[in-house]
């Protein structure tokens, strides 16, 4: 048998051709929609509640203008348009993986009560999003504690002092504190504040993204 002598370039060309040919049958290189979960690790996270953010902390961050996190409203577009927490962006659960969120970002999720946010949290965790958090008790709690805080009639001096602080936070977000004797539950329809702070909506197209420049 006669040995075929190949130059280095020809050998490399053969290797490349083989790798290229095999690629046709290798399938899709993108990881699809399936995921593997470390259930034990997630269970511990849930147990320790380190994945929660309180509405007080969030209000504080918004007032301070912190921008090291993304506040994501997972409700529908319509609900988002009616009211949303200032600085929030709208990404319904079904659109979570359409590329708006990065894995290295701090993401705070909220929904009406918290169920949808918690489910979205699981999906993100399954896809290796490292720092996803849930707003504790969601928009309901935001309304109760931030927008329309109330105080019991027989409140102690300390509680009254804390309530004064809440009032100013509420005013910042355009809410109205509930004072006096009226029972919070029986208060007639509380008017939701108007959306004054600018908010970007990812689902509705949002602001045009800036082009990133890369060159040779």
């Amino acid at each position: 048998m006669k040995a075929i002598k190949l130059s280095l370039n020809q050998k490399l060309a053969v290797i490349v051709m083989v790798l290229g040919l095999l690629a046709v049958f290798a399938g899709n290189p993108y990881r699809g929609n399936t995921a593997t979960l470390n259930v034990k690790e997630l269970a511990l996270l849930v147990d320790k509640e380190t994945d929660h953010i309180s509405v007080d902390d969030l209000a504080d961050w918004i007032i301070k203008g912190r921008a090291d996190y993304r506040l994501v409203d997972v409700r529908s577009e319509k609900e988002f348009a009616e009211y949303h927490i200032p600085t929030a962006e709208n990404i319904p659960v079904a659109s979570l993986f359409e590329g708006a969120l990065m894995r290295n970002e701090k993401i705070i999720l909220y929904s009406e009560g918290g169920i949808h946010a918690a489910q979205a949290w699981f999906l993100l965790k399954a896809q290796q999003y490292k720092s996803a958090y849930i707003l504790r008790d969601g928009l309901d709690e935001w309304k109760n504690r931030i927008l329309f805080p109330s105080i019991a009639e027989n409140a102690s001096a300390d509680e009254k002092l804390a309530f004064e602080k809440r009032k100013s936070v509420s005013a910042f977000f355009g809410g109205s504190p509930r004072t006096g004797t009226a029972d919070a539950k029986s208060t007639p329809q509380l008017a939701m504040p108007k959306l004054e702070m600018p908010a970007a909506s990812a689902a509705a197209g949002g602001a045009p993204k800036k082009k990133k420049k890369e060159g040779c």
Partner: protein
Amino acid sequence: MNAPFFKFGLFGDEASLIVAFIIGIGFGFFLERAGFGSGRKLAAQFYFTDMTVFKVMFTAIVTAMLGLFWLSVLGVVDLSLVYVSQTYLAPQIVGGLILGVGFVIGGYCPGTSCVSAATGRYDAMIYILGIIAGVFVFGEAYPLLKDFYSSGAMGKVTLPELFGVSYGLVVFLVVLMAVGGFVGAEWVEKKLAAKVKGVQQ
């Protein structure tokens, strides 16, 4: 450039700058070693007398493509984390032509001009001044160019998505294109070398 490790959070912002610095030094070093610090060699590509630029670029493309494809198939790399720039067809064609014309006239592309300037060539330093002037003019004229600049946005598109074929097939076709290109390049070089010799005799 240092994705996907950066996006995975393997290192932070500061460390990423150091990584970028090291990669940049390496990139510049190998460009210089490949002879890309010489405007003559680069310009020769456009007269088809020296196909080194073509060969180096295509080698880089094929190596990176096969590497990324197989590493992601084997589960080492998550391809969805790799940055894909957005496509604006007409503006990018015009931009590419302007860059190409500058490349032929000046003998450098932006990257190689820096490499060449670092080795002390005056023409490359002048070329960099030209780049800065161009950036300045573009910046000042941006309000006039804005509409065209952002026209025809197609978002992030890849060839397999655009043509509805599998990734593997595109990989194979690019490999065929590269190998065919190499054979063609060698042939052109030989042909032109003979011609140049003939003229000299």
